[in-house]
């Protein structure tokens, strides 16, 4: 791809000076080497230094630059700029309070993550060497441990939009299952108790928006289904 100009419509809001949010029309000329949406955002920022967004690793592993791109959540650093319909419409992740421009307040999202006790629980005295785990047992963690906490999934979930304080959300539940599935963890029953609630787990209505938007191709709906199975199985 050679030099080209790309048109954007970007959600702007600076509480320090704006009475209300507005959509800004802006375009930018890109170099041949600019391939990802994040490259374009960096160019835009050089033009208008007040444009605010989070970014760090630029390779899809830190989870900083999740935004709503043409009405779909995704990571700016993994989105091919030339695949997008113009004007490219950029908004902050839906369902969380906006701090400024494309930056949202993620407090509620992390609160839910913390609520599932996201750490290994094993009260046995640690052995001198590693706890053993077979390759097959370890395989159970694939598709779970890779979560980057970008919040694309939870903020694409209508159930999370309506009840962000009560519904754990797809990311939190995926992480809950990551520990349930770990043969080294001893707290399965406690973890299930923690989720046995009309809201925390059961607000998932398998709409599957989470699966659709996950930039790491993970499947929270499947993990949620497995937790529900375990609930049913222990009830009978």
């Amino acid at each position, binding site marked *: 791809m050679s030099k080209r100009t790309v048109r954007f419509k970007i959600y702007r809001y600076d509480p*320090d000076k704006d009475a209300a949010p507005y959509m800004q029309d802006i375009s930018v000329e890109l170099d041949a080497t600019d391939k990802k949406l994040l490259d374009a955002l960096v160019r835009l920022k050089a033009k208008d230094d007040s444009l605010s967004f989070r970014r760090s690793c630029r*390779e*899809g592993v830190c989870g900083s630059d999740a935004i709503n791109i043409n009405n779909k959540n995704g990571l700016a650093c993994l989105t091919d700029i030339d695949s997008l319909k113009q004007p490219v419409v950029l908004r902050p992740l839906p369902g969380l309070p906006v701090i400024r421009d494309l930056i949202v307040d993620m407090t509620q999202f992390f609160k839910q993550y913390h609520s599932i006790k996201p*750490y*290994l629980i094993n009260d046995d005295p640690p052995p001198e060497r590693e706890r053993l785990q*077979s390759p097959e047992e370890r395989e159970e963690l694939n598709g779970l441990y890779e979560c980057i906490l970008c919040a694309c999934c939870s903020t694409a979930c209508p159930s999370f939009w309506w009840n962000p304080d009560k519904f754990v959300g797809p990311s939190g539940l995926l992480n809950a299952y990551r520990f349930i599935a770990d043969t080294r963890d001893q707290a399965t029953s406690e973890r299930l108790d923690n989720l046995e609630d009309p809201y925390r787990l059961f607000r998932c209505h398998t709409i599957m928006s989470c699966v659709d938007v996950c930039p790491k191709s993970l499947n929270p709906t499947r993990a949620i289904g497995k937790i529900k199975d375990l609930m049913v199985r222990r009830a009978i």
Partner: protein
Amino acid sequence: MGCAYSLETVSVNVAKRIFDAVIVGAGGAGLRAALQLSEAGLKTAVLSKVFPTRSHTVAAQGGVAASLGNSTEDHWHWHMYDTVKGSDWLGDQDAIEFMVRKANEVVIELEHYGMPFDRTDNGKIYQRPFGGHSMNYGKAPVMRSCAAADRTGHAMLHALYQRNVRAHTQFFVEWMALDLLRDADGNVLGVVALELETGEVSIFHARATIFATGGSGRIFYSSTNAFTNTGDGLGMAARAGIPLEDMEFWQFHPTGVAGAGVLITEGVRGEGGMLRNASGERFMERYAPNLKDLASRDVVSRSMVTEINEGRGCGPDKDHVMLDITHLDPAKIMKRLPGIREISIQFAGVDPIRAPIPVVPTCHYQMGGIPTNYKGQVVAPRDGNPNSPVPGFYAAGECACASVHGANRLGTNSLLDLLVFGKSAGESVVADFKAGNLSLRPLPTDVAERTLARLARLESQKDGNAVPEVRLAMQRTMQKHAGVFRFKDLLKEGVTRILEVAESARTTCIQDKSRVWNTARQEALELDNQIEVAKATMISAEARKESRGAHVRDDAPDTPEHPNGRDDQNWLKHTLWFSADNHLEYKPVSLKPMSHDVEPIALAKRTY
């Protein structure tokens, strides 16, 4: 709202928070240190510019070194030999012995914290070969790199964060430390920091301060590093009068994706990948007959650049080489290197199962940093002692220089470094605290003045230089004048040029004056730190008139008298750069191990 910061308004508004300890940075080293303090019950504040799991440790791929011997026989003696040799004998042998002997302990701890390591058939931690790591003192590759697929850093950082959640560590997320606070006697008193969301400036007054701020590879134009790796700890230390050690030594990782710079782990070669030139030749056989593609990183990067310079590069511009894994079983690629496949498809547009990946050496890691000893205490010259601890100040991880990597780091030793020295810095603070050696020293009334002056200057600057332009000038200068191969004339010119860039950075100007989440202000403040690192690098590199490890210059060639261009008689010493007047001092390398369990590794020519 008008000006957010003026000297008159801010000095009355600076809040003070008091802690036993403040840790700056929540990557691997900061989180590992925080665990020690939280579990010991110290009142600790951990400041991070980004949410902890977004720190750049997350991007480490290939593994963490430990001589567990799960798949091949291994000993810490061999690991120590490899690390000293890899460092081209510039690493301190006491610190290196300390690190390699602690390796098994810190890796097993992580497993106990829940880190999802890959497993061997008998359920142990999976280990893979890695560059420069050998059995029996260089005889053959060894399986020493403990890995979680090719996402080891991600798995590690999340496990460490999770353990800190369990330990109720107190985080100040999205706060940027701006300056290190010291009193007239040089004691460290904490930091002054800025909350990004509100623009609030606050003093974190503490008995102990630990820097774990990571690297600063973004001073170069082409870098594997995250945007946030801006050397903040180094900049803060340098401005506060602490020297920076061995800053001429930068690692260029052999395999950054050509054009994009994104890292492709050495684990790819550990799993059997090979580098090929335009004619398809596996050229590393010529440069390193023994370890071939798994030679040390500096050796591989130079070999690649030599291939390119001699016209054997690939592509229309012959400006890269190919990393080939098409001969590997696709099932193995999917299992051991799934992240690499994603990255190749995303950033190189090729599926490595079918086609080779275009790669080029890319700035990756800073071997130098804030001088420390193996306990994680920051040390600086005082009263004739080059290694006098700075009271109240500790550092660990990439921002620190212990020095275990010397002139060239081995792959997987960085994750080991941050675990071992994060832990030991934490242990040192706890021990010093319990011994009553850490007092809450009074804050001088003008302690934050320098920081407020910087903020006020930035607020009122008119007709200055745009931050992205100054940054680009710095990056281009570093890339051209201090790259994989260095040249006497270019270095000399580079010093003049980088000092000009530094001058232009004194009048950076931002349009955005908002108090709320002002990333323009943040980037301008980060640039101040990057400039310190860039000056330290260029000036230290120009002065070192030998070739050693990652620092190879045209006027110090390989001769019988000076194998590989190394000059032990004159240059077997650490550089110390001081920001105030750009002057350099030197201090001896510790050639003696810590214990009598091992003989010093004797100086020899490095071949692989």
